[in-house]
């Protein structure tokens, strides 16, 4: 009885804040700018421009996810070995307590022509770099922002692996590489998948960072959504792009969630 009662607030929450908005968004996507029902938004989405934008969004999201993973995985393994795991973890997570925009603005200062990076580069005798407004800068900032989100699930996964297993593998003659590839990797796979899910989807629609760091030279689906809702006030088209983002999310979820039923305590945030 009590259980059912406790379920009610959750149900209300889900209906109000998940089902209703989703329904509204799908609904809006079938209306044009003057409120007439139409399928034209979907037609427009498959026009060359939005298609190109989708491709470039996916490409950047892929790069961001890849680099976050490449940095986070070894980092998680390293933290696992340390004495004060929680302390090191906290250090990495600490920046997430600072507002995203604030961090982005800090990067503008660092990457600018007269910023810190150039000051160091010229002091070391390198040529002045035009880092701000480049796609490299975009990837650096995004990866920096997403690392904690990638690191946490992976760390949880690798931390849950018993040292005995690793010792056993070594005793049975596995090389370090084998231990990594055949023991650690498979056991931490759920964490990696969760990390990818958490990083990939939001990075498809990073519109503030594209504007602040790349001066709109990198365009993501988020930029298009923002413009449709705020300046054009074409909610239909904005919603249509939103629908495709959700479809993309479902795709990523399906791809990354196959066969990890057997996981116990690993892979959770």
């Amino acid at each position: 009885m009590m259980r059912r009662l406790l379920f009610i607030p959750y149900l209300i929450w889900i209906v109000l804040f998940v089902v209703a908005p989703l329904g509204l968004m799908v609904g809006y996507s079938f209306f044009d700018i003057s409120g007439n029902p139409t399928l034209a938004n979907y037609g427009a989405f498959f026009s060359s421009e939005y298609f190109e934008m989708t491709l470039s969004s996916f490409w950047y999201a892929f790069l961001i996810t890849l680099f976050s993973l490449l940095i986070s995985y070894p980092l998680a393994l390293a933290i696992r070995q340390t004495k004060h795991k929680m302390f090191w973890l906290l250090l990495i997570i600490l920046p997430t307590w600072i507002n995203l925009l604030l961090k982005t603005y800090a990067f503008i200062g660092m990457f600018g022509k007269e910023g810190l990076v150039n000051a160091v580069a010229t002091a070391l005798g390198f040529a002045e770099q035009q880092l701000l407004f480049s796609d490299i800068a975009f990837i650096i900032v995004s990866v920096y922002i997403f690392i904690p989100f990638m690191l946490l699930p992976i760390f949880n996964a690798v931390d849950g692996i018993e040292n005995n297993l690793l010792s056993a593998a070594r005793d049975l003659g596995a090389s370090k590489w084998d231990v990594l590839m055949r023991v650690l990797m498979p056991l931490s796979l759920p964490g990696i998948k969760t990390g990818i899910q958490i990083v990939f989807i939001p990075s498809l629609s990073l519109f503030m960072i594209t504007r602040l760091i790349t001066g709109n030279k990198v365009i993501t689906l988020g930029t298009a959504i923002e413009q449709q809702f705020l300046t054009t006030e074409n909610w239909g088209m904005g919603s249509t792009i939103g629908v495709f983002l959700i479809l993309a999310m479902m795709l990523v979820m399906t791809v990354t969630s196959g066969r990890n039923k057997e996981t116990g305590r690993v892979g959770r945030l």
Partner: protein
Amino acid sequence: MKSTVSMILAAVGIGALILFGTRFVNPVPNEEGNVLHVYNWGEYIDPDLLAKFEEETGIRVIYETFDSNEAMKVKVNQGGTNYDVVFPSEYMVEKMVVEDLLMPLDHEQIPNMKNIGDNFLDQPFDPGNTYSLPYFWGTVGVLYHPETTEGLDFSDWDTLWDDRLENDILMVDGAREVMGVGLNSMGHSLNETNEEVLQEAEEKLEALGPNVRGIVGDEIAAMMEVNEAKAAVVWSGMAQDIMWENEALDFTVPEGGSNLWFDTMVIPRTAQNVEGAHQFMNFLLDPENGAQNTEWVGYATPNEAAYQLLDKEIRQDERFYPDQEQQEELEVYRNLGPEMISLYNELFLRFKMALE
């Protein structure tokens, strides 16, 4: 079981406490008639004037700020707010009128209206100034670093396409403004609705791509202050603010047309203190108050009487008070309707995507 119940009780208790607490954080004024809610852009009024107004009228001013017309409209629109005086830009006035968000002004309660220059009254966005009165005005032009751009003459829009500016121009993130650069440089109207012409303008803009360092919002100010780029396409008001911080820069409005924009004063339908709102507008339009405010804000005032009280140096600065001849080339943005605005934005998006 018991612990769950006490948990829920605790949660409800904390929630109630916080709700109660908000009463102290943001005191809800209920002395009607004595309070005026003003909703304006940040740093857009001399705070001393607010104090003076309170002293003169006994009305307490509650002053809030916004940073974009769109955000402002959402807040006025969604209810729950009761701002008495709001300061939208001209294109937003037109939208708000269409959506019936504004209250007609009682011109008799604003005798100082006579101080406003004729050029700035009765504009197409609000014929007869039924709903709005101009507060400040300005143009769109080029802010540039005269030393690093030596030899370039920005009195022509086409100069922006010069090879020497490669990767060195910042632009404001606005479809009308950026498309406007293309249109103005080709001698077309800023309110062009011919699709072919608009396509051509966008194509011409794509050729500007290599020179564009970035398209950013208000961050342009901070970036130009540290010379992140040699030139920037900005609103005159913003240029003025930046030039106070970075004296090496100069500003010019290229010939061949530019935008004439207004920030205006309006009264939303939801206003509670309509009389106070009129009083406030009248107060700001007083010649001396207007001059004081203009000196503080630094934008160009449409208030003729206040203008005459300004320093000669400011009055004769043609960068911010263009002469009659150039003023005639300026165009106010018309509301072109949702389809056209969509097209402008689509083309703007295409231009952004062509940037490398």
